[in-house]
């Protein structure tokens, strides 16, 4: 993307007015998407975005500028703008040497597949999904299927001599359905997403996705209002895993910790969860949605144990927050695009499987709610209060899964809920998601086996 001598000159220019650290993050991203809606291929879209973000750190201050102009003069202009924060110190020429280059072209596993996809192939998949969803039941009134693929090349150089590249392919396929019945309309959604090219569809059947989405909408046609108040909740394996993402994942991000805006600040070594809880964030897992070769600061992805047997072991770190603590980044510095500053983000966050039997957990729950599929969630890291939504849930009566429930949000407090996990099964599965923080979205994975929480407040309309 950019020649090494140019990078060196730009980094030198970025430090001309002072500052201890400078970085060039260059990105070239191309994406394509197609949507089939209401039985028609409505829109094929292609996008191309290329540019660089330049960061200068001086003391506790970061200067940042980005440009779509990757010529040396364009980069130098951005370096000048980013260095404006460091006017007080430095002065004169700064020489920076970087390299050799690590990992260019394929450090991210699974990224070497078949990036070049014919548009006709993706449309064929959409048609098959539409057909399968409509065949799932006469009450299916509307189907929308979407395909999205992207290729992202990054090149990161910094004044500490780092020079690293990565190439990340991501592919996503989703189906959403509407079913109509006597009680109105209900919706169902399912998605598959991996850090691979078109070979996603070697592993994933779009018909299966469509049937899952349609089944969800259909089953809710006869759903009754969700209960309201505190109930025991069993979360199915792979139902979303978003519980831990919200209940503690965000609260373990070091930017919240250093600003004392997390309930988990100062808790390392403390028992913060049930002994059944071992939570891991791991950017190296196979081709999961949150996997990458290097993070957006050039640090290799790694496996980080955050909670072990209920005891808080560590937080998640990016370069800036780690530097302040005199330690290394944990490979969690991520950004949405070159136009964004990196910050501490999760990758694939999951609860390790336990020893219980999934069916037994349900059988031993006299009364409660069984959540087969979760929607999104949200957390206030300072108070620990978080919500997560259901998109497929059932009542548990006398140890059996019975009637379907309408969608509702559940609300809890992270540190309290983590202590209420009293059973974890073996049927582990991961799901993809999009995590938003401070206006930036990044792909993440979430995972868990079937587990039970002894009490969570569910916000249905039934009294």
């Amino acid at each position, binding site marked *: 993307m950019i020649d090494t001598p140019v990078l060196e000159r730009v980094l030198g220019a970025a430090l001309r007015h002072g500052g201890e650290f400078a970085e060039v993050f260059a990105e070239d991203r191309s994406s394509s998407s197609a949507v089939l809606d209401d039985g028609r291929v409505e829109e094929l879209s292609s996008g191309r975005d290329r540019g660089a973000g330049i960061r200068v750190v001086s003391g506790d201050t970061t200067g940042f500028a980005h440009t779509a102009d990757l010529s040396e003069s364009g980069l130098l202009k951005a370096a000048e703008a980013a260095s404006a924060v460091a006017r007080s110190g430095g002065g004169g020429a700064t020489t920076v040497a970087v390299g050799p280059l690590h990992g260019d072209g394929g450090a991210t596993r699974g990224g070497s597949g078949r990036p070049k996809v014919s548009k006709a192939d993706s449309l064929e998949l959409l048609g098959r999904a539409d057909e399968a969803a409509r065949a799932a039941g006469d009450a299916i009134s509307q189907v929308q299927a979407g395909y999205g693929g992207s290729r992202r090349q990054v090149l990161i150089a910094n004044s500490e001599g780092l020079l690293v590249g990565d190439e990340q392919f991501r592919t996503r396929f989703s189906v959403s359905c509407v079913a109509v019945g006597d009680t109105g309309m209900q919706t169902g959604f399912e998605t598959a997403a991996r850090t691979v090219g078109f070979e996603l569809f070697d592993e994933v059947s779009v018909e299966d996705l469509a049937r899952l989405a349609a089944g969800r909408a259909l089953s809710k046609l006869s759903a009754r209002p969700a209960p309201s108040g505190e109930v025991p909740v069993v979360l199915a394996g792979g139902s979303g895993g978003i519980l831990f993402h919200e209940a503690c994942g965000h609260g373990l991000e070091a930017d919240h910790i250093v600003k004392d805006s997390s309930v988990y600040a100062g808790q390392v070594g403390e028992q913060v969860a049930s002994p059944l809880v071992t939570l891991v964030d791991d950017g190296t897992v196979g081709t999961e949605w949150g996997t990458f070769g290097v993070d957006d600061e050039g640090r290799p992805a790694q496996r980080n144990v955050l909670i072990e047997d209920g005891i808080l072991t560590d937080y998640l770190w990016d370069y800036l927050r780690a530097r302040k603590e005199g330690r290394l980044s944990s490979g969690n510095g991520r950004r949405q695009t070159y136009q964004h500053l990196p910050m501490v983000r999760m990758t694939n966050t999951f609860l390790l499987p336990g020893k219980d039997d999934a069916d037994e957990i349900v059988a031993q729950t006299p009364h409660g709610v069984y959540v087969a599929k979760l929607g999104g969630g949200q957390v206030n890291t300072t108070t620990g209060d978080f919500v997560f939504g259901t998109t497929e849930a059932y009542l548990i009566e006398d140890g059996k899964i019975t009637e379907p429930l309408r969608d*509702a949000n559940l609300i809890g407090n992270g540190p309290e809920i983590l202590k209420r996990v009293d059973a974890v099964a073996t049927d582990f599965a991961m799901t993809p998601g999009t995590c938003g923080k401070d206006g930036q979205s990044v792909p993440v994975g979430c995972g868990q086996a079937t587990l039970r929480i002894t009490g969570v407040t*569910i*916000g249905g309309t039934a009294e």
Partner: protein
Amino acid sequence: MSTAIEETTARSGDPGELMAVAERVAGWARTGEDVEVYVARGDETEIRAYDGEVESLTSATSAGIGVRVVVDHRLGFAWAGSLDGSVLAETLEEARDNAAFATRDEHVQLAVPDGVAAVPVDLWDEGLAAVPTPAKVAAALTLEAQARGADPRIRQVSSADYGDGSVEVALVSTTGIRSAYRKTSGYLSVGVIAGEGDASQTGGGFSVGRGFEGLDPDRATADAVERAVRMLGATKGPSGRNTVVFDRRAATTLLSVISSALSGEAVAKGRSFFAGRIGEQVGGSVVTLVDDPTDPRAYGAAAYDGEGLACRRNELIAGGVLQGFLYDTIAGSRAGVASTGSAVRGGFAGTPGVGCRALTLAPGAEGYDEAGVLRAVGDGLFVQSMTGVHSGVNPISGDFSVGAEGLLIRDGKLAEPVREITVASTLQRMLHSLVAVGADVEWLPGIAAAQTLAIGDMQVSGV
């Protein structure tokens, strides 16, 4: 990879140049195809203060193009984050190629001028460009210091930001559309953490405007501090049926959610609970809902919509009776009506869709402010913020279940704070249960007005 230095065809400072770029690309249309070219350029500055220092200073310029091509009622789209000469031609070519794969649909067409004159709205602050960066830095530092010292219970200022931006857009099509607009914006935004003993609570406040002048740090700080401090000592509230008063900011969110069910596109595709109900009573007689982007006070005020047609006032619900929906050109054609000038697009990387810009409920005849609504309600729950709106509100089924925090209302006044509760109903029922609409209309960032609302018979889940 080598760096290609390409001809740059547009530089900041001359609005006529964007129009020239758009006209040049539209001029490349072939016989038998319609082409629409959207060209945008923007500048932005963002300064975050922390603990008396600048934490980060971002300055950036971006530009890009989005092209829609319609050939034989087939639509293709492509975008690029650059206005380099070679990119323009590639983007048009890619959109053209995409069109060939779309389904032929007689309703697919570009907008044509409809004779409705645009109401000029002045969204450009001439003074913004002349504000020096140090003045902006000072604004962020002052905000942070002010928030930190506002109340002895403020333990932390988690964010204190100044930001501004300007954007210029030109839209040209071979069907006769030729529109251009530009706008500036500025904001101050602050997040605080209040503490007492072990308990912490958060609050946010902001001040927005078209530029630098007039931004009000006192207002932003007072709002953030009040919201955090009054929540100290919050406990999980009681369960039961209750009247819920949504504070102005929460009400904006509520109206925005309802707006998606008023999209003629959602209606045509069977994804709105309003479908087929024009002329019916869909809410209480106090519900009169209008989208009027020609109101210059509205945050979303605009002269032109996302297809270059004039924005106009659209009455959607009058006295509780559904009057009609919002349409862009394609959705209008599907419904057999003209566009209502309601196409919205999220920048050059997105295609137009149907949306509100300035939705507001007609203020109740009583002329209530917040205190007036509280007095009228007497006893109930005051919600100051909601969470999980994206996971718990479904504008297709109408199911509504959100996390909430706020204060109990007793004898017409705010009483003790409550948190970790949910509030649930259906959007359909909520429209019928609106018991008071405040006259305290304020235009905050977003697509709907902020005004205090009281809704009866909602299910609250807490202890």
